[in-house]
């Protein structure tokens, strides 16, 4: 049975059927193959109920809030603010790039959007200051995956929706791993900057500058405080916080800066809506597949295969991660999480891995895969904004990938990195 599902899946995917429809067709042909045509009605029913969910409602709002913030121009103000403090480090702008990604991570939850938004700001200004174009792009791409690991995070909402794991818990668990990736990238950048003698920002921190920059970035900085404080403090559900984030972004654009026209607003809503079309297809189809796999007992079979290699928890986790990295090279993070989550998570949980720990591990792993060749959303976006060829970008990118893989290993083998914050906030019973 596993063989047939895999053949169908890869056969359909390789000839270029969109992944969401590959998932749906695999299920459809699976029903027919197992002579369960009676289940056909489950396709429409499961697809509908996947979407009819209050938890999932957080996703379009976070998507929209990030888009509005970019349109309003808060990103540029954040860069000025971060430059005052972190520009003074060796390789100033590269460090600021990473720090902005960390703060940006508290506003937006999508990596590819981060690559595009920050790339357009940083790559021109970095090359102007004498940084190589490939290095500037590599820093942008590598740091952009921090955004979906630091809450709020769109992929964590997806994972939580299909796996029925607490989204607030996932958000809390993502904070330390996200910061760790930031620190790792900053150390690496410091080493490279020292060797290539990259410039620093000569500006001194004066009181007037501090006040001016802080005032400029104030609205952008308030957003993560409201969203994260609200969710982690238990005041709002993630969905409510996401709605507030949209309201806040609209307020900033329409009332504070007044640079958001009605036409802009329509196009921002429309753009987010089209992205929702893509996500709808994926999530709803993956829900049907997860159900089909469960009744065919595929997760048990996969567990059996893994356990026949080893019954050591650490070796199994290592195998899972190697498998995920390989899959992630070809498959986008959304479909990979939605398809493999229901298969791999039960295996890990059986071995005593906490669902939150496993969820974050998957998110970090598949996020790194967004920048590994031959395919990856951030990699491609980096090639577009940096105007580089695949080979050129990868040559500059690989030290950063290694640094992130090192953090991944820490996340896998030191559960406290993920579990400490949710434990402290009472998300773990």
């Amino acid at each position, binding site marked *: 049975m596993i063989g047939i599902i895999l053949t169908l899946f890869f056969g359909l995917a390789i000839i270029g059927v*969109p992944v969401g429809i590959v998932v749906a067709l695999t299920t459809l042909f699976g029903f027919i193959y197992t002579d369960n045509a009676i289940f056909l009605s489950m396709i429409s029913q499961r697809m509908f109920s996947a979407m009819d969910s209050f938890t999932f409602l957080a996703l379009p709002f976070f998507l929209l809030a990030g888009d509005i913030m970019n349109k309003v121009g808060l990103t540029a103000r954040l860069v000025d603010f971060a430059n005052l403090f972190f520009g003074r480090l060796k390789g100033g702008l590269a460090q600021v790039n990473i720090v902005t990604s960390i703060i940006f991570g508290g506003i937006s939850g999508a990596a590819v959007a981060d690559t595009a938004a920050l790339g357009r700001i940083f790559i021109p200004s970095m090359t102007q200051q004498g940084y190589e174009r490939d290095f500037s792009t590599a820093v942008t791409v590598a740091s952009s995956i921090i955004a979906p690991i630091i809450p709020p995070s769109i992929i964590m909402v997806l994972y939580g929706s299909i796996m029925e794991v607490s989204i607030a818990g996932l958000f809390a668990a993502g904070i330390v791993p996200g910061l760790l990736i930031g620190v790792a990238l900053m150390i690496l950048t410091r080493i490279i900057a020292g060797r290539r003698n990259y410039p620093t920002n000569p500006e001194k921190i004066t009181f007037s500058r501090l006040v001016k920059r802080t005032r400029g970035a104030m609205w952008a900085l308030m957003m993560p405080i409201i969203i994260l404080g609200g969710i982690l403090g238990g005041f709002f559900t993630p969905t409510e916080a996401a709605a507030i984030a949209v309201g806040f972004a609209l307020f900033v654009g329409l009332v504070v800066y007044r640079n958001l026209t009605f036409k802009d607003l329509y196009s921002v809503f429309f753009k987010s809506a089209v992205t929702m079309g893509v996500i709808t297809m994926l999530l709803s189809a993956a829900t049907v597949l997860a159900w089909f796999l469960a009744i065919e007992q595929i997760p048990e079979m996969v567990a059996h295969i893994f356990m026949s290699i080893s019954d050591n928890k650490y070796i199994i986790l290592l195998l899972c991660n190697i498998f995920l990295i390989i899959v992630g090279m070809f498959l986008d993070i959304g479909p990979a999480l939605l398809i493999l989550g229901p298969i791999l998570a039960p295996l890990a949980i059986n071995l005593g891995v906490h669902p939150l720990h496993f969820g974050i591990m998957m998110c970090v792993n598949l996020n790194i895969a967004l920048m590994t060749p031959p395919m990856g959303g951030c990699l491609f976006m980096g090639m577009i904004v940096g105007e580089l060829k695949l080979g050129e970008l990868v040559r500059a990118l690989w030290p950063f990938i290694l640094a992130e893989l090192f953090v991944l290993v820490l996340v896998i083998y030191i559960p406290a990195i993920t579990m400490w914050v949710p434990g402290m906030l009472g998300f773990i019973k």
Partner: protein
Amino acid sequence: MPNYSRAQSIIDTAEKIGLAIEKICGALCVFCFATMTIIAILGVFFRYVMQSPFMWTEEVARYLLVWLGFTAVSIALRQDKHIKVEVLDGFVPQIVVKLMSYVVDLLVAIFFVVLLWQGYLMTINNIMTASTFQISMSWILAAVPVAAALTLVQLFLNVIKKIFTEFVPGKEEVT
């Protein structure tokens, strides 16, 4: 073989119809999205500020999300935004890529026909009503077959454009 200008006018018509449907669907999506946003913010406002939660806000927001998400599937298909694995392009001859794209269209069509059929059955056989409103759940369930139908129409128009592009000399594929 139709003459070139005839082929071009068919392509243009298909493009015009597709764009018109996209615009209408887009307006519906934006309406759902905007209303959903306002309702969700109102929900928070009444729960925390007025201390009297409305039960209906959550439900209405969810139903709008259903209509928004499914309607947008057809727009994403027209704009070719659905995520694909493109490993074979560049490794196989152009003619094979072209043939495969028709096979893909056929497979996509098969799925949406099944979804249209099953979604239609689900909608007409439904006997439930929404929990806080006295409206039939069929109004919400209908998003699924409607989305399937719209997607089939857009797919059909895309295929028409692709076929007739073959007859227009010196023009690359439009899709």
